Structures are given as C-alpha cells and as structure tokens.
C-alpha cells in the first residue's frame, strides 16, 4: 500500500463527494419537480435553475468512474459488472434525463414524455447510488477473481442496503429542495412550497442516518473492520455531519437562510462521504464471501498513479475555474416569466 495509492483512495472519494454535492441538488430537483411545479412557469424556473449547470455536475460521476477505473481497475470491474442491472438502470435513467432537458424546451407536444423522463431519470439514480454504497459496506459474495457471485439485482437488496438507499435518496431530495429554494423567486409560491418541504426532508435525513448508524453497530452491515487509526476521523465526520445538518435545519426554517441552508446541506453531504471513506479504508469493496477488494489488491502501478496525479494536478484547477465561471454567470435567483 503505497502513499500514492492511499492518496488516490481518498481522491476517488473526493470526486464522489463532488458528484454527491453537485449532481445531488439537480437530481433532487428532478425528483421534486412533479410535486412542486404547479404551472409551466414553475417548471421553467426549476429547469432554468439547473439547466446551465447539470451537465457539468454529471461529469463528476464520469470523472469518479474514470478515476476508479484508472486507480483501482479491479474495484471498477467488480462493482460495475457485479451491480450490472442496477448500473444499467442508472444508465438508462441518466440517458433519458440528459436529453429531456433540451427536448422539453424544443418540443412542446412531447412535453409530458420528457417530464416523465426527467422525473424517473432523477429518481432511479438517486435511490440506486445509496443501495450500491450499502453493498460495498455490507460486503458482496465474490469468487477468487473478484467476480460477484450473488443473485443479480435482487441479491443486492437487504434491509441495510435499502436503508442506505433511502438515506441517499433523502439527501438528494433535501439538497434539491435547498437549491430550488435558493434559486426560485423569493416571494413566489414555488419558493414557499419548496421551503416547506426542505426542513422536514432534512429531519428525515437525520432519522435515516440515525437508523443506518444503529444498524451498523447492531451488525446489520456485516462484519466491518474499520481501521483504528481513523477512528478519530470517523467521529469527526459524524459529528460534523450532524452539526451541519442541524445548522441546515435551523436556517431552513426562515427564507433568509436559503444560502446558509444550502451550504450546510452540502457540507453534510461531504461529511457523509468522508465518513464512508474512513469507514471503508483500506477496503474498496467489502466481501461477504471471498476476499475484500483493497487498496493493496486493486491498486494500479506506481507509474500509472503518478501519471494520474499529474493529470489531476493540471485538470482539477481548470475544472474549478470552469465551475467558478458558470456558477458566477448564472448567480442569483431566477425570475418569474411575466408572459406566462
């Protein structure tokens, strides 16, 4: 286990956190969309709030996938092939969702079709990502070569993975509510509606987190052996997660707290991924049968990781600049279209 491979273990999780925070809010907005949009102008506001940024947000997933492939090929191969049908459902969802944005705007007769695609395309990934994470924590049955040998799709659903799926889903929805509240016109009905969903959703997150944590301690998540050295970091992330969530809940109660609420919701998302990473370390995929896939067993060669590090050092600053530009350009609230 070299220094570079440890670095890349955490970098993969940083990329996942980037995805969870950024695409988190636009997937969440997509799930809320049919429930909070009562008119075409509401729909327009929601689509405008995420339209310019969702595509860049989604690239975080592709980057995390690519980084996992490059840094830990065995973990990439095992999870993507082992979770085959689940991954494919996520894929179909992301595909129809991606095209629904522009086709909705350009094809008024087919709006209903693209509305459905947008909703389902947001819901499925938001639920299934959490289920996948639950599985890598709880452990999956693998043969000697690291191939999943359990029941396809349904074998991935246990009480624990269902709970992590719901926790993930609730996080996505809460983030979506925070973002729409931040972008919707301050005195619109849409803002009032979404603000009233926000706090209850965050309380649901809190409850699901408590249940999930309890399940881990009660052994529902299999025998997880987290390393002692990171115990302090785990506690730190757990406490920070709770603290950030509390701040989010407090500020979610008043409409002037939209920004603080969104930021603390995002901090909570980051801490949750941090907690996951420090719990998993040094394992990438736990095993219920066979050997876990670890940094040592799955890591790429030193040279490969070094090249990746150089690529990241050049690429990441550029990526951050692009994000700064786009979020700055489209800052502020969307306003109600008068004509509609």
């Amino acid at each position: 286990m070299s220094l570079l491979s440890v670095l890349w273990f955490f970098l993969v999780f940083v990329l996942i956190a980037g995805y969870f925070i950024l695409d988190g809010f636009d997937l969440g907005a997509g799930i809320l969309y049919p429930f909070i949009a009562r008119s075409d102008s509401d729909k327009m506001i929601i689509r405008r709030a995420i339209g310019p940024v969702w595509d860049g947000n989604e690239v975080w997933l592709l980057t995390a996938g690519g980084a996992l492939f490059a840094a830990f090929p065995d973990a990439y191969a095992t999870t993507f092939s082992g979770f085959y049908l689940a991954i494919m459902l996520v894929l179909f969802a992301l595909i129809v969702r991606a095209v629904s944005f522009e086709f909705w705007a350009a094809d008024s007769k087919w709006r209903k079709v693209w509305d459905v695609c947008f909703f389902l395309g947001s819901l499925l990934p938001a639920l299934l990502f959490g289920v996948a994470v639950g599985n890598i924590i709880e452990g999956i049955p693998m043969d000697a070569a690291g191939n999943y040998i359990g029941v396809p799709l349904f074998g991935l659903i246990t009480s624990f993975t269902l709970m992590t799926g719901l926790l993930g889903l609730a996080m996505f929805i809460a983030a979506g509510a925070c973002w729409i509240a931040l972008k919707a016109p301050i005195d619109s009905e849409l803002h009032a509606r979404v603000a009233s969903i926000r706090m209850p959703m965050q309380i649901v997150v809190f409850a699901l987190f408590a249940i999930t944590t309890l399940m881990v301690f009660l052994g529902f998540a299999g025998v997880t052996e987290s390393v002692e050295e990171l115990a302090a970091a785990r506690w730190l992330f757990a406490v920070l997660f709770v603290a950030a969530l509390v701040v989010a809940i407090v500020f979610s109660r008043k409409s002037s707290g939209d920004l603080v609420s969104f930021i603390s919701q995002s901090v909570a998302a980051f801490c949750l991924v941090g907690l996951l990473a420090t719990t998993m370390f040094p394992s990438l995929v736990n095993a219920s049968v066979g050997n876990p896939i670890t940094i040592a067993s799955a890591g790429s060669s030193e040279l490969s990781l070094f090249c990746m590090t150089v690529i990241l050092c050049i690429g990441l600053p550029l990526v951050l600049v692009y994000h700064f530009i786009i979020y700055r350009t489209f800052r502020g609230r969307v306003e109600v279209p008068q004509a509609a």
Partner: protein
Amino acid sequence: MDQVLLSRMQFALTAGYHFIFVPLSIGIGLLMAIFVTKAYRSKSASDEALAHMWVKIFTGTFAIGVATGITMEFSFGTNWANYSRFVGDIFGAPLAAEALFAFFLESIFLGMLLFGRKKIKPSFYVASAWLVFFGSALSALWILIANSWMQTPAGAVLSDDGKEAVITDFFAAAFNPSTLPRYFHTVLSLIVMGSFVVIAVAAWYMHKEKHLSAASAMMKLGCIVGVVGTVFLLVAAHSSAVEVWEEQPSKMAMMEGMYETEVPGLAIAGVVDESAQDASTLSIPGGTSFLATGTWDTAYPGLNDIADMDKYSDIVVSEMPVNFVFQTYHLMVAMFGLICIVLVLALVFGRKKLVEQKGGLAKMKWLQWVLIISPIFPFLAIQTGWLTAEVGRQPYVVYPSVTGPDGVFMLTENGSSPSVQTFELVITMVLFFAVYVLLFIGWARVIGRFVSEGPVAEGDESSVVVIEEFAAEAASSSNDIASNVEAEAIIEQKTDYDDKGEE
C-alpha cells in the same frame, strides 16, 4: 447465444449508435463555431439568425452524444470486467483524463451556449462556441488514444503474474504507433460529415425556395470545409492504412481478402468465399503494395501464413470474418469516392456566378436531391470504417501488433464479465433498443423543427421578428435571468400558437 457474443453485439449497437451523434456534433460543432464567429464579426441580423439556428441544431444533437457516451464509459466495467482488469493500469488514465480535460470543458461551455446568449458578452459567447468544439475534439483525442492502444499496444509490459498489462512509459502508450494517424483520420471524417449536413440543409432550403441567402452562405461554407477536410482526410486515411499494413497483418489480410501470401492488388470491389478461402476481386495488380511501400511487387503475408506465426497462433483462419471486413473496408472506400463526386458537383454547379447568371444549382432539382441525401455517404463511410477497424482486430480485443510488447494482448472471448449472465444481457439489449429508438424519434422531431423553422430573423417571417424584438426589449428592461426566460416564454407562446394553428 453465448455471453461474449451478446456483449459484443451490445457494444457494437451502443458504440455504433453513439457514433451517429458524435460525428454530427463534432462536425457540426466546427461549422457552428464558424457561423457564430461570422455573426459576431458582421453583427448582421441574418448572420445571427443563421448562427442561432446552428447552435440549436448542434446542442440538440450534442445532448444525445453526451447521453449515449455515458454508456460507453460504463460498458468497460459492466460488460468487459476481465478486459478492464487486464488493461486498467493503462486504459483508465485516458478515460479519466478525457473526463477531466474534455467533458468538463464541453459541458460547462455548452451551458453557456444554451443559456448565456443574452447574459454573457458576445465575445465570450463566441469563445464558448469554440471551447465546446475544442472540448469535443479533445475528447476524441483521449478516446482514440485508448482505442489505438488496443490496436497497437505500446509503453507497457506484461506483469510478472501474467494477469495484467502494466504501464512503463505514458507517452509511448498514449502516442502509440496508430494514435495520430487514426485521430486525424477520424476527426477529419467527422468534419466532412458536418460539412455535408450543412450542405444538405442548404440544398433543402434551395429545394423549398426559402431562406435563400442563408442557404447560399451555408452552401459556401459547407463546400469550403468539406473540400479542405476531404483533402486532408485523404492524407490521414492513407497514413492510417499504412499503419495497419505495418502493424496489424491479420487485419490487412482480411481487408484485402488474402488467405495466401501474395503481392496485394488494389481491389475496387469483390467477394470473399470464406469456405473456399478465395477472393474474387476486380483490382489493380500490385496497387496496394504500391500504396503501402512505393513498390509494385512487395508481398504481404496471407491469413494462413499469419496463423502459423507464434504471435498469431490464436488465429483460427476458418473462423475469421474475412468477407465482412473486406466488404466494410471497400464500402468505406467507395463512399469516399461518392463524397468526392458530391463535392465536385456542388462546387461546379453551386458557383456564385453560375447561380446568379443561369440558375445553376438553384434550378437543378436532381442535384438538390443528391445533396439532400448526401450526408448518408460520410455516415456510411464512418460506420463501415469503424467496423473495419474493430472487427478487423478480432479475435483479439487487445491486438498483438508487430511492434507491440511481448505478451501484451488479449483474446476478446477472455475479456467479458463472468458475473453477468445471458438473460441480463438480453434484458438490457431490449431496453437499449427501446430507449435508443425513443431518443432517435425525439431527436428527429426536434431537429426537424429547427430546420423547418429555419434561420428566422431573415425577413419573410415578420411576426417572429416582431416577437423577438419585443422579447429583446423585455430582456433589456430587466437585468436578470428573467430576460432570457421571458424571451423564450414569449417565443414559445408564439410557436405553441402556431402549432395549434396547424392542427
């Protein structure tokens, strides 16, 4: 049906479909960026309308390219797990780099193009158009680096346990012998594709006798880009063929239908009888030998001799898809011929002088129809070219090229995912089919609408102009995103009204 064959079919389906929209978006992307730049320079309303139409066509197409591209990145892990384990040390880095360097660039500046027209400085809007094109061309570079490494591995060795390829030299791996020829061959063919789409739309307007000044501007730019692209394409295609002749003997033998060692002729057309191991062709004797080496009498090994070599001992000659590769390769070449003919016709009869004095292309209905259907030629050339490249490398997924490192190769049948079962592949195949058909219909509706609306601010559809002006006024009176929303809401109301009118 067996799992490897199903996985191959799935990859062929998804990659082939993805590669309908990638050529369109990269090709159209260049012309769109030029239209946008031209409108920025001239500031004329008609140029702006034309640029805006192409931005809409581009973004509508780009969306599908992005969406179906996710499939490709996932598919290595989902369907080709053993392959991913074998090549991950080398193959993963270009994919991650593609996401970091290219996908972010494309997607973020696409957001600018879509939503920023009235919000950002015009010069920044122009820059965004170029950055999106540049990002997509960069994306093509990284994915071709990855694919070329599968064709001609370099900069790697087989690990001690023989289970994986390990990188030894990043630049040697990235710029392996086939990367650059194949990159230029591919990207130039995509640009030719884009120029043909622009030519076809121009011809459509000439046929309908509307938007004529826009049509002539499009015809001109399409022809210029098409001709320049085709000339360079010839050079790139040749160097890419030379690479195959030097590095991939079994692919070369299949392309020419050669079972026995001989001096390869330049076949124009023919058919290969695989059971009799015989190719009947109409060909120029020694032609391919001349193209490859400059001499008319250099012999190249046939499949039977190649299969006797240690390096290619996995080849079973009777199972090689020789006729398929022969046909796809020659179809590609034939399509290139048609591309050249179309361009010559468009140039000769589309000359401004001729059109103004005698009508030329403007009066030649048959030639307009030829141009309208002409994008099918580069489209077929691109698809058959890729089929040649990918089927021609069988039975290997990582090809043991002539200069490739010892032991760094993999048979396709060993690359799939052991944990994925046949019924799962059948389910996803059906879903892919359904989703991709839906996408295609949705895309055709949207693009058809953009084209039939045309570059509207041109004058004949005055109602739209009025509405756009009103929208622009509304935009200038407010200084937030609302401007855009309002403008679009108003225009949409107008179009909705039109739709109802039609019904």
